[in-house]
């Protein structure tokens, strides 16, 4: 169907204020937070309710038009770049919290609510929405569910996957389904909820999400430890976890990140250290005093430790967390282009993997900073380069291929939390194997027979 027909038909369906197709709007939706990927959609729609979503998807189905559900567009795997034209469906107008049930510890939300807005709202009830991706102030719950977003608390609390109880979703035919519900226990039928979490907009479009909340902990406490190198930090992490503590937060920065973050945040970090370990826990005052105290001691007595400091108060702790969340932008200040990756390896192989990443950087003459979640082995190697230098760009591509191959040697994965999207689809088969690849394609066909939902991503 021609673009103008597409616009005319959708306008009849939704009225003119929900449909945009001027050059400026189209351009604005041509990218997400992934560098180097761009593509123009043909039309942008902004549905206000489930019925409208259903109508739009049915229309896309009938006309075989590609359609991408888009939240805040903060994903880092080119999952919302319209590489095949078609419709971008912005979910941000559906941003109401429909219900907070304190006694059941659940909330029911529309997909466009931002993570932080939801968390701040339930805070009033003494509850919290646990998943806390670095992008929480902007990313939407719909996007979080579609990518099973992680965050800084993965080791102790898991990721978005562990907090989704039920979904209302629109299939690739326009049909509306409900999965799961309000209950913690519910095994009626296949666990479609779990399948849809992390499906990156390729199986169905979420229109209502029931999330599990948790009691808000009384307090939290954080500290930093500095080490000569990352191997020493990894040793300390191993000792902490085998000592029986399950901390909420164990994050690390290598020296490149550390220096970049300090330049930006001016926290007085020890920039001579080879690695920084940010550790912390939440819970009641007595138990976090104990667990954080014990972590500090283990770190101090670990070989290669240069020093340990505990955050004096909430403000100091918040500053540390903010600095950690800003590792990527801080690195990005170093040059005109930064490519962030998201591999994960078993914890015991973490130090070795980081060493290998460093070697890849040296081999290709690239600057690579690595930060990540030391507790769960999720590493974010970030290449900073000059985008106008073709040599560096070519080197970065070669280095990326090696970085993706690396975790597989250790039984790890090509993406821990950012997703596959278009950016990592070429590497997916190496990770999951041909039979599973085919299974994923078959699953997609059942949910989306016309292949219109976010084509060119998982299941393609």
């Amino acid at each position, binding site marked *: 169907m021609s673009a103008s027909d597409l616009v005319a038909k959708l306008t009849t369906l939704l009225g003119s204020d929900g449909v945009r197709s001027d050059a*400026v709007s189209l351009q604005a939706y041509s990218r997400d937070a992934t560098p180097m990927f761009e593509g123009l959609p043909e039309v942008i729609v902004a549905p206000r309710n489930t019925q409208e979503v259903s109508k739009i998807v049915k229309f896309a189905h009938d006309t075989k038009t590609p359609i991408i559900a888009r939240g805040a567009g903060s994903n880092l795997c080119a999952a919302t770049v319209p590489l095949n034209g078609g419709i971008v469906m912005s979910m941000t107008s559906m941003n109401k919290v429909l219900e907070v049930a304190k006694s059941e510890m659940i909330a029911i939300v529309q997909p466009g609510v931002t993570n932080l807005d939801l968390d701040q709202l339930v805070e009033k009830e003494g509850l919290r929405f646990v998943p806390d991706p670095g992008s929480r102030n902007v990313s939407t719950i719909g996007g979080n569910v579609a990518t099973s977003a992680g965050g800084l608390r993965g080791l102790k609390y898991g990721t978005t996957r562990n907090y989704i109880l039920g979904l209302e979703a629109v299939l690739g035919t326009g049909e509306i389904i409900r999965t799961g519900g309000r209950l913690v226990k519910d095994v009626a039928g296949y666990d479609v909820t779990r399948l849809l979490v992390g499906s990156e907009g390729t199986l169905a479009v979420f229109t209502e999400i029931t999330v599990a909340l948790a009691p808000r902990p009384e307090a939290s406490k954080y500290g930093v430890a500095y080490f000569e190198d990352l191997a020493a930090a990894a040793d300390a992490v191993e000792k902490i976890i085998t000592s029986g503590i399950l901390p909420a937060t164990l994050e690390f920065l290598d020296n490149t990140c550390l220096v970049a973050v300090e330049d930006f945040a001016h926290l007085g970090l020890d920039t001579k250290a080879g690695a920084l370990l940010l550790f912390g826990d939440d819970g009641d005052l007595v138990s976090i005093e104990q667990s954080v105290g014990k972590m500090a001691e283990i770190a101090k007595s670990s070989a290669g430790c240069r020093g340990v400091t505990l955050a004096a108060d909430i403000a100091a702790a918040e500053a540390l967390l903010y600095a950690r969340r800003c590792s990527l932008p801080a690195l990005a200040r170093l040059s005109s282009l930064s490519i962030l990756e998201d591999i994960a390896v078993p914890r015991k192989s973490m130090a070795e993997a980081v060493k290998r990443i460093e070697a890849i950087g040296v081999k290709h003459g690239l600057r690579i900073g690595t930060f990540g979640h030391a507790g769960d082995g999720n590493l974010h190697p970030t290449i900073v380069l000059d985008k106008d230098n073709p040599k560096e760009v070519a080197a970065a591509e070669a280095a990326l291929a090696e970085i993706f191959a690396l975790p597989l040697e250790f039984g790890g994965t090509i993406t821990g939390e950012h997703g596959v999207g278009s950016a990592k689809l070429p590497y997916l088969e190496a990770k999951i194997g041909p039979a599973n690849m085919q299974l994923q394609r078959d699953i997609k066909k059942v949910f989306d027979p016309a292949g219109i939902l976010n084509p060119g991503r998982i299941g393609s």
Partner: protein
Amino acid sequence: MREKFSQDKLDRCISCGYCLPACPTYKLTGNEESSPRGRITLMRAVQNDKLPALDLLQESSFCLGCRACEPVCPAGVEYGVLLEEMRDITWQGKNRPLIIRGLFAIVDSKIGMWGLGLFSPMARRREANKDLHLMYGCFERRLFPSVSRAVAKLAPEVSCSSDQGCCGALHAHNGELEKGKEMAKALGAKLPGTILTTAGGCAAHLSSVIGADRVQEFSQWWFKRDIELKPITKAGRKIRVGLQDSCHLRNGMGVFVEPREILKQLGDLVEVPGAADCCGAAGSYALLQKKNSRKVVSQKIADIKALNLDYIATVNPGCTRQLVTELRRARVKTKVIHLAELVANSQIQ
């Protein structure tokens, strides 16, 4: 006239979207193109010849220029500068709004500036400390002459020279970036030493051109003087007072603690929700984008009304004008007053 954006400034943006929740126009529409990230994407498209420059006209006008997107940006994107460049690229010739052409005509000419000061009861010209000059502001001298009078009364050491033009902020923000810079330099040469200004917008522009060490905004300067103020009372109780931040003062210069500390001495400081958010005056915005300007300010007016304040203090003349107009329209009794005048009132008591 500019044709291209500064590439290094465009490159800073990593499209993370952290700035979206801070942007008033994104809040109004929910549309990516009216967000800071979206506008930068559009600028990039123009830079790479994927979009004609004139397609930026609408968004360059819709953007308030409030720079709320800057302090929240972890990558340090200088959006304010990019916006100035965007207007410089698009607001040329017939695309420059008539009102802006009119305003330029006034401040560009000696007669215009003379006219603005004519019969205005602003602070009288005097020579005092040769290294500390009060800046009258171009339209402030006409619209709110009592502000400069208040400063002159508060500080006898301040010199007031009649030979001073406009600082060029008006130009820089409305499509004449280079001229705006020249004007700032010219003013810097005319008024040696420190320039004291009662307008947050002028302070930010001037200091970006002639250096922050040469510019003092009133609250910054007064706070450092460390003079204890008597509380102002009304019907036997301390006044209830709120503050409207100046966007450029807060987001561009990081000054927002000082005016609050001063107000705490003068009365009971009540933090108005969204005090840091743009009031919609945004330089010439209230004139050019009347409807949107009113949409932006409407929640603020409701909040001020609900708080039942005696005064709402301002640190920038544009905000004064906007709040006076809109509070009057909503029949709210709260009085809008520049911080300097409030300080002067305390001294008199």
